């Protein structure tokens, strides 16, 4: 079919004037920028607002709820482990519940839940952070303006986060980053050992849930693949590098040249193809026969597509427009799971639930998708490092970005949906410990002996 012919001619098909490297760097940059921006904002908030001398009421009540050891924010390892374990169990249960709801096709439930949690985070946590900032900076804003601006901003950002088709892409991405920043800042208020235990526990949970056959996230992924549906979830999607992947272009092109093949491809797809052309040889023949509008049909799509699964709603509308050729950039992408967080403190249980996602992959337009949960936990790690010193912040930031790069490489190698947390969190924790024990000693000694500053 024409699709197979286009596929076979891959090396020579790069648009004139740009190479794979140009768009490859751009793709990765467009996912590293928002992650870095999120971390930077959390570090700023933590530096401005944290007062490490006084234990926060949050930690005191956690200690009280878990049969706390000593009064005041004294946290120790058993309490931390218990809290982390409780949290992971709660998240697992919630994910299974979500999988059940998805199985029963209660999509309005899921959407309403997403909307409620996004709005709650922006309104409650956002209001709290704004009030803390106003108090700390002594900025004399009056109550009337505040009462007018806060619900407005929260509503607009929640709308932007949930309905990406109705707002500029930049605003949608900014809203997702805002939700991540607020949640991450809230998490950094936990006591120290609890935070670290939580991070490690979530990394292990992510690894297990996505890769083990019985894991909740994997179940959800397979369900979505089977049904060719999109899981309603909060996922950050980088802007596609090539605007020809946009829905408008496709529709316009449909009108002028029906059945034409698109020669533009996403960069990760090209990497995958270059890496695995031998693997593709066998399965390419079988998939070429499925050139109908089953652009969500995972099992028949080319293997290079399997990096991510997520159906965007725009794809389904294009499918209904009767698109004939199996465009290479259509891929089945399963949106990552939404993992609600339930607060560990019993008296506030059920009040707040935040949607976050785990996992990394490719979207139907070829751009990289990263779950919001990954944003949140990366920022929590860096925020907690900021509470110690800026040296640890730099080390952890570099470690996390390196971990993200490694995860993207693994994505290109393995061509499966992968958890994005484990590698980065492992590197981040290792580098935090190393910096605090070894590097700090070294730098302090050098400075006091005037060797280097």
């Amino acid at each position, binding site marked *: 079919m024409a699709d197979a012919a286009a596929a076979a001619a891959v090396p020579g098909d790069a648009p004139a004037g740009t190479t794979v490297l140009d768009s490859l760097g751009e793709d990765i940059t467009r996912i590293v920028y928002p992650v870095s921006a999120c971390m930077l904002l959390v570090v700023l908030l933590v530096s401005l607002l944290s007062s490490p001398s006084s234990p926060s009421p949050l930690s005191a009540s956690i200690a009280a709820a878990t049969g706390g050891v000593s009064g005041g924010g004294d946290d120790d390892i058993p309490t931390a482990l218990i809290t982390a374990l409780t949290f992971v169990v709660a998240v697992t249960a919630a994910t299974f519940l979500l999988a059940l709801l998805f199985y029963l096709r209660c999509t309005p439930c899921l959407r309403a839940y997403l909307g409620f949690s996004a709005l709650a985070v922006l309104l409650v946590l956002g209001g709290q952070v704004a009030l803390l900032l*106003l108090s700390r900076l002594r900025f004399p804003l009056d109550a*009337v303006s505040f009462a007018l601006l806060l619900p407005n901003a929260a509503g*607009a950002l929640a709308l932007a986060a949930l309905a990406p088709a109705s707002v500029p892409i930049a605003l949608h991405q900014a809203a997702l980053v805002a939700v991540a920043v607020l949640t991450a800042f809230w998490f950094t208020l936990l006591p120290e050992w609890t935070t670290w235990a939580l991070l490690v526990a979530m990394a292990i949970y992510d690894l297990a849930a996505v890769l083990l056959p019985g894991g909740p996230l994997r179940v959800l992924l397979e369900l979505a693949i089977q049904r060719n549906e999109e899981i309603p979830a909060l996922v950050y999607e980088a802007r*596609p590098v090539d605007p020809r992947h946009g829905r*408008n272009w496709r529709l316009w092109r449909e009108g002028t040249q029906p059945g034409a093949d698109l020669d533009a491809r996403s960069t990760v797809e090209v990497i995958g193809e270059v890496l695995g052309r031998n693997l593709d040889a066998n399965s390419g023949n079988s998939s070429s026969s499925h050139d109908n509008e089953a652009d969500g049909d995972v099992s028949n799509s080319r293997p290079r597509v399997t990096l991510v699964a997520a159906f965007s709603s725009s794809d389904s509308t294009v499918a209904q427009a009767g698109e004939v050729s199996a465009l290479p950039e259509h891929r089945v992408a399963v949106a990552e799971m939404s993992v609600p967080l339930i607060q560990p403190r019993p008296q506030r249980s059920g009040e707040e639930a935040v949607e976050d996602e785990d996992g990394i992959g490719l979207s139907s337009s070829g751009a990289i998708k990263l779950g919001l949960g990954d944003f949140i936990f990366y920022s929590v790690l860096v925020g907690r490092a900021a509470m110690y010193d800026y040296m640890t912040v730099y080390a952890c930031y570099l470690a996390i970005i390196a971990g993200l790069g490694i995860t993207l490489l693994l994505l290109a190698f393995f061509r499966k949906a992968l958890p994005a947390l484990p590698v980065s969190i492992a590197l981040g924790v290792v580098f935090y410990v190393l910096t605090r024990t070894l590097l700090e000693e070294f730098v302090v000694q050098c400075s006091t002996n005037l060797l280097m500053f």
Partner: protein
Amino acid sequence: METRVAGVPEDEESGLLPRPSAAGRRPSSRGPRLPHPPATWATVDGPLGLPLEDAEGHARRFFLWGFACLPFLWAINCCYFWPVLRSSAASSPSAFAPIRPYVVRSAIGFTIFSVVLITWATTFIVGGEQLFGPVWNDLVMYNVADKLGITGFMG
């Protein structure tokens, strides 16, 4: 429309040379390259944004909902349809004509709202206690927050 390659006689070479496909009628297209897209994208996202047929309903919905004390929806409307706003009324493409009134009215509404709000906030900040008297302390947000105790749980 010219469909043959310039300088090549059609009858002799028709079977030998690759020909630009007949579907590509624009003069700039050749071979597998796609022709340049139309320059009339209504949204600021260009080819990734809303298609034209959805744009009018969207603009109207945001304009009407903005009246429910949500002026930021007007701002989003203006930002999203920035190309529509920027093109002057005379030279804008006909496709923009149904969208334009809503976007312009949203811009006016948001301008009025922001002017009123900024004036009030600036008066409050600059005037301080001299202008308002003891009421100022009751209206300042950080005092209100302390009084209501809502900054409590975050420490």
